[in-house]
């Protein structure tokens, strides 16, 4: 029985199948909103209102020719997309979606799983760097170097901002953090700065405009993904989509008091809250142009990190007051 339950968790909900379906829906939502903001239509033909477009893109890429560059290490080159996909799906398992009560919130939750989630979310950056490096192409190497340079910029504010609500809630477990804020929702008002800092840092982690420097199409042809094609590229794109979903899920758990109320209501709240975060991400994407990598690092150390530190101080003060 437990084995079947574990398999359902892993494969169907909230495992691979659910994340796959939901991330394609989120990608459609993002593209449609971005297009409407630019006075265009966006995906419109596949399925009703274009909702099957991301699925169509994924299937098309699966059928394309798969080329490995001659000088590249075949094993690492081919396994990187799969490893990346595995990493982001694992993050999805830690989100507290089965919130029946605090003792059985998700597949496995334990003290300290916030740290594990943040660690797992920085692995994709390393994977992009390795992908760029192993492509043995100057443009990809440059893209990989830029990915790591950006990591120095956004990682610190993201960590600080996500950990501030954890300090107030006095726990390092995602389920308990969201449970705490479900009990005291007004304490969320003190976390607004952290919310905005983490949304901007998430935009940088997902490599979307204004931070899509490593994948700048007009400058370095395709950045880290220049040499990838076919199934491998399909997995990489799926990985970025799922990363968007779990990243916004993480922000929704920590800053928006999680998904309470059992399985169905919890799912409904999950969809609502993640779509809200993704809408904000799309708005930022439509309103800004791409900045250079050195300007990005300067921006995050000059503005984002001080704001994150400020948020941390506010959290410490609030915790002192409520105790």
């Amino acid at each position, binding site marked *: 029985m437990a084995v079947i339950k574990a398999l359902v968790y892993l494969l169907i909900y909230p495992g691979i199948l659910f994340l796959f379906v939901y991330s394609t829906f989120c990608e459609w939502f993002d593209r449609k909103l971005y297009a409407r903001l630019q006075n265009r239509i966006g995906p419109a033909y596949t399925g009703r209102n274009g909702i099957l477009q991301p699925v169509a893109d994924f299937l098309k890429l699966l059928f394309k020719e798969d080329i490995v560059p*001659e000088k590249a290490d075949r094993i690492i080159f081919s396994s990187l997309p799969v490893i990346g996909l595995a990493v982001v799906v694992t993050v999805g398992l830690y989100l507290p979606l089965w919130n029946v009560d605090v003792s059985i919130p998700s597949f496995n939750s334990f003290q300290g799983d916030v740290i594990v989630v943040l660690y797992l979310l920085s692995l994709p950056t390393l994977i992009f760097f390795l992908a760029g490096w192993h492509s043995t192409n100057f443009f990809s190497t440059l893209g990989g170097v830029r990915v790591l340079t950006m990591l120095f910029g956004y990682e610190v504010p993201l960590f600080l901002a996500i950990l501030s609500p954890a300090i107030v809630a006095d726990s390092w477990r995602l389920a308990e953090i969201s449970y705490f804020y479900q009990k005291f929702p007004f304490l969320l008002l003190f976390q607004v700065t952290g919310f905005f800092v983490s949304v901007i840092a998430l935009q940088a982690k997902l490599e979307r405009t*204004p931070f899509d420097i490593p994948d700048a*199409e007009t400058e370095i042809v395709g950045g880290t993904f220049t040499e990838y094609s076919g199934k491998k590229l399909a997995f990489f794109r799926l990985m970025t989509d799922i990363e968007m979903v779990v990243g916004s899920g993480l922000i929704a758990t920590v800053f928006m008091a999680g998904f309470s109320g059992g399985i169905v209501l919890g799912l409904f709240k999950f969809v609502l809250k993640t779509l809200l975060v993704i809408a904000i991400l799309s708005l930022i994407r439509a309103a800004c142009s791409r900045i250079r990598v050195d300007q990005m690092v300067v921006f995050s150390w000059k503005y984002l990190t001080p704001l994150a530190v400020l948020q941390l101080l506010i959290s410490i003060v609030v915790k002192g007051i409520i105790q």
Partner: protein
Amino acid sequence: MKKITIPIGPQHPALKEPISLRMTIEGEVVKDADVRLGYNHRGLEKLAENKTYIQNIYLMERICGICSHSHTTCYVQAVEKLCGLEVPRRGLYIRMLVCELERIHSHLLWLGVAAHEAGFDSLFMYTWRDREVVMDLLEIISGNRVHYAINTIGGVRRDVNENQKEKILEGIKFLKMRTEYYTNLGTTEPTFVVRITKVGMLPKEKAIALCAVGPTLRASGVASDIRKDDPYAAYSEIPFELCTANTCDVLGRVVVRVKELVESYKIVEYIINNLPQGDIKVRAPRKVQPAEVVSRYEAPRGENIHYVKSNGTDKPERLKVRAPTLANYPATIEMLKNCFVADIPLIFAAIDPCVCCAERFVELKDIRKGTSKVLSMADIRRKYKYNEIKKDFVWPL
């Protein structure tokens, strides 16, 4: 990091037309740049010696899609001077109307392309949506969205009636509103401005010494515009201002082009409101007396110069075309030194490159290469096995 040489082009997503730039890079800074031309040569100057003057108008039009009217007008002006024709004023005004509409559409296109290179896709989509308004106006006047074919030796081919005039004025009013919005957007959106400020610096003395033309020159503070210095086609009768900027960088070029847009709206309104009555063309002789003439024109990209020499027959002896983008290449190379890799497409886009304008010489070999390249690859796949090609062969680029 040691110095590496990377090729940008001939195929690159940042370039709309093939051109090969070899950059020597150290880390993320460009140390040296080199331009190699010739990928778009079509043999037009040699071809023009074998066609009559009227047939050459069609040839000149197809030098470029965006600035087609500039090449035909420049050529037709030269031939009219050779024949000693005087074009009636109504014809000249209609010619100027299409010139200014072309300038508007070219600058809107450029704004979109520069925004796209900087990563600002929203501005790209908005300007190209508004460009449709201009294309529709041009279609109303001439029947075509590109290659308007409105010039002929001795005047223009089509007339403008009252209905069309009203539509043009409406369109211009709408565009004026939108351009104000873009001016605000382009100069105050911080992520965009920080990308284009201090990028592609071209100091004033260098701009003059390297013979730059057009908005690239005017953004460095030099007040030089052929419409004012060497007025052709009744521009001396129209009041407008010369637009310059002092910042010598890509932001200056954006500002100059947006100011020129505003001036073009004023010129179009003046033309429509003061269109003189009369004929639109005169008859042109078929054979032209031997003479030579130099004709200059202010295209959206800069100074366009045609030199025509006739020898008494109905075909020209020599027709030389120098399109504005070619004049801006030495200035581009100067701008590319000591810039970041990320700025390369932006700097190159800022001179508004129209590579097919800049290359017109005889290149039967290239035309053959263009078609037989496809054949060769198919040939190779059919006849030779793919892995028989040597593995360590160095491609000659």
